[in-house]
């Protein structure tokens, strides 16, 4: 059991390699009223092609990771929600591009709640009938997203930027793809990705390592290490098209301008994330010349923001908001990026923006939930929760300028627009 402390926060966490194969992180906050646990697998919507131990490659329907998330809550003797109802824990789960997480918050009966979490995730139970029932519920979840312009504008953009990488497909899949899911396929995915060697548990709040390990020892079942290989169809460096348009029931057009970045390693490093966070803030943060200029020209409102998203095999920087003239807005953003590339970044501005990002990286430590989720993210990305903060603190102007020269390239950029129907 290792203890890793951060000197700025004067807080830290325990890291445990459990004999069953599971990596456990415990971040105590003894003054919390509540505790939070998140049990995650490195398995998300993009993992549609895989094989174990060098066997045959398998291709599964889109949306199956999310479907599996829904179904794991069920067991032969009732669902996990009704078990949690006995302990009072507030439980949920989510599936993203590259991970699936099961979580709960508890203010009492933590031990019992953790036992439920570890137990139900380790006990799959699906029948053709329960699979069918879920198709109705998830079908409505998919339809809810179809009407959500903020969601649509993002996936339409990813469809422009990626030829084959599965980030271009919605996390929940489509009505057609989920119709192909059956109990047997669910078991196959389960057996591959819910091996404890591919998973991690993070617990934060008013708990002790001894308390967590006692439950873990009792509940976790030995997992034989397996070798999981994932593959994606070949993704060209180029983009598919530079524009997408969709009409929806909105009043003000919505836009998302996005840049594809071809990062060669499996995951972005903390340094790469810090550089891009600072760079996007310099370009389009509220203190930037661009932001006030777009605002004054009537091209954006306060919904405007920039973001960087990266995971296995994809990395995208986005500028999004509402605009009466998305094309002109996009052009102004592109011009500003190119101007900055040509003229260089002002040293003073760099320092101020870096300070802001440093502050933001501290703010996350106020929330048990964010700490827990970040620990899991960091674990799957091969680093630690404190790395992002340290990477911001040590980031240099030269690093950011170098990044600007290699990223946010015009020819790897597309504009997605939602217009009023």
């Amino acid at each position, binding site marked *: 059991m290792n203890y890793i402390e951060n000197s*700025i926060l004067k807080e830290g966490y325990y890291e445990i390699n459990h004999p069953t194969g599971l990596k456990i992180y415990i971040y105590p906050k003894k*003054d*919390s*009223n*509540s505790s939070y646990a998140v049990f995650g697998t490195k398995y998300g919507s993009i993992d549609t092609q895989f094989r174990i131990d060098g066997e045959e490659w398998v291709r599964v329907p889109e949306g199956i990771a999310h479907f599996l998330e829904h179904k794991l809550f069920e067991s032969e003797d009732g*669902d996990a*929600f*009704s078990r*949690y*109802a*006995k302990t*009072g*824990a*507030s*439980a949920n789960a989510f599936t993203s591009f590259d991970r699936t997480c099961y979580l709960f918050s508890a*203010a*009492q009966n933590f031990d019992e709640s953790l036992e439920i979490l570890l137990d139900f995730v380790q006990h799959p139970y699906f029948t053709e009938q329960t699979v069918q*029932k879920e198709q*109705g*519920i998830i079908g*409505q979840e998919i*339809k*809810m997203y*179809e*009407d*959500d*312009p*903020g969601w649509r504008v993002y996936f339409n953009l990813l469809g422009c930027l990626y030829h084959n990488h599965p980030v271009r497909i919605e996390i929940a899949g489509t009505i057609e793809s989920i119709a192909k899911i059956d109990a047997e396929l669910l078991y196959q995915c389960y057996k591959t990705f819910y091996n404890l060697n591919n998973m991690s548990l993070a617990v934060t709040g008013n708990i002790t390592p001894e308390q967590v390990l006692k439950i873990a020892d009792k509940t976790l079942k030995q997992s034989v290490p397996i070798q999981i290989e994932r593959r994606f169809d070949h993704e060209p460096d180029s983009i598919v098209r530079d524009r997408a348009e969709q*009409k*929806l*029931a*909105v*009043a*003000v057009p*919505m836009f998302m301008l996005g840049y594809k970045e071809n990062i060669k390693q499996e995951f972005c490093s903390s340094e790469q994330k810090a550089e891009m966070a600072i760079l996007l803030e310099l370009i389009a943060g*509220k*203190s*930037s*010349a661009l*932001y*006030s200029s777009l*605002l*004054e020209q*009537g091209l954006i*409102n*306060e919904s405007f923001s920039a973001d960087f998203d990266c995971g296995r095999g994809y990395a995208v920087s986005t500028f999004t908001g*509402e605009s009466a003239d998305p094309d002109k807005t996009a052009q102004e953003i592109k011009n500003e990026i190119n101007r900055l590339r040509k003229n260089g970044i002002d040293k003073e501005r760099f320092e*101020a*923006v870096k*300070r*802001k*990002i*440093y*502050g*933001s990286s*501290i*703010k996350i*430590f*106020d929330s*048990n939930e964010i700490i827990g989720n970040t620990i899991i993210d960091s674990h799957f990305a091969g680093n630690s929760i404190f790395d992002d903060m340290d990477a911001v603190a040590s980031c240099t102007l030269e690093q950011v300028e170098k990044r600007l020269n290699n990223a946010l390239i015009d020819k790897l950029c597309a504009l997605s627009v939602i217009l009023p129907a």
Partner: protein
Amino acid sequence: MIMTKIDKVNICKGVDFITVKDNRFVTSSVSATIILPLDKETASQNALLVQMLKHSCKEYPDFTALNRRLDELYGANINSVVTKIGDCQMLHLGISFIDDRFSLDDSSISSQCVKLLCSLLFQPDINNNSFDTKTLELEKRCLIEEIQSEISEKRHYAINRCTQVMMPDEPAGLNRLGTIEQAQNVTAQDLYKTWCNIIKNANITFMLLGPSDSSDIIEFLKNKFADINDRNVKQLPKAIIKEASDRIREQVDRMPVTQSKLVMGFRSTCAYPSKDIDAMKFMTMLFGGTPSSLLFKNVREKLSLCYYCAARYDRQKGIMFVDSGLEEKNSQLAKEEILRQLDRIKNGDFTDDDINETRLAMLTGMKMINDSQWSMQSWYINQLLDNEFVSPEQAAEKIESVTREDIIKAANMVKLDTIYLLAGQEDA
């Protein structure tokens, strides 16, 4: 268990300062919350004023200068919210920032942030009894776009529309931001008058949460308001409580959407300060507030009709909303099932397990409030119209004592008033 220690200091007539000192956090927040009657003549004006105050002040007269200052303050964040509470409009302006112990140069982040918030509120960019007209035009456009964009969030939009249909003659039926037409007509002089009136006469509650110290800002505010000696604070209007109309109101709106949104509005005369509001809260949770509630278990899990079907209760107005996203063709079935589940509670057809589970879920929710500044802030702000503050611990005690009979009684107090459906176009 960490107990909330809340200190209330009166600054002057109508102005209070609340401190919730809590050293566990890495951030602090300071805010001013102003409550005004919600009125169709002034709603947009008030909303615009908050926007103007948020974006500049004498010291930092433009958006960029102000935001560069915030960057220097380690990404301090100015936030503003305009909401409804009862039949009133609530304007909220605040700043949140990381604790002084993270300062890289020993300067106090908190005192500078408090100073900045005070500048925004008390030294706005005013010349000749008028705000800047160019900035006002920009803010008007942004506010109008915000009102227009409400349609983008279909779930919220449907609840807002149901509220409108249900309460045509009550302030709570108005949009929290007013209307596009009103926003267009506001002048820079109007805003100046609104600002003067708020500082002079409105109910203002300042609140500090987190590890920062509040003595300096309390001193500052006492001096500031000492200059204003003739504060004339009007009593805020009491929320209008109505019984359900005899005929159920029904409204269907059509627009190009894939999924329909059903909202059912129920009325009761059980509103603050009724002794029954805790039972009503409890009943609403048991009905549709958790993943083990009757609506979740039946409308979603059993009938597989939707992804969400939930109930919420507004204790100021005595109103309960149930909402769900579904296929239009299933809306009748869902309506019947929702009413059937409510009837079950009315008839006492639920188990002791249902009661115990709901109680546990509510207690968990209340104990968790103290672990998040945002939750704590909302918790107290939502009580600003009440006679006294109840801490989450005190609220938990009240929940402990709710009985089966109380729940049945509460359920029998609610009556369906309005059914709203946002649906796709018929020819689609």
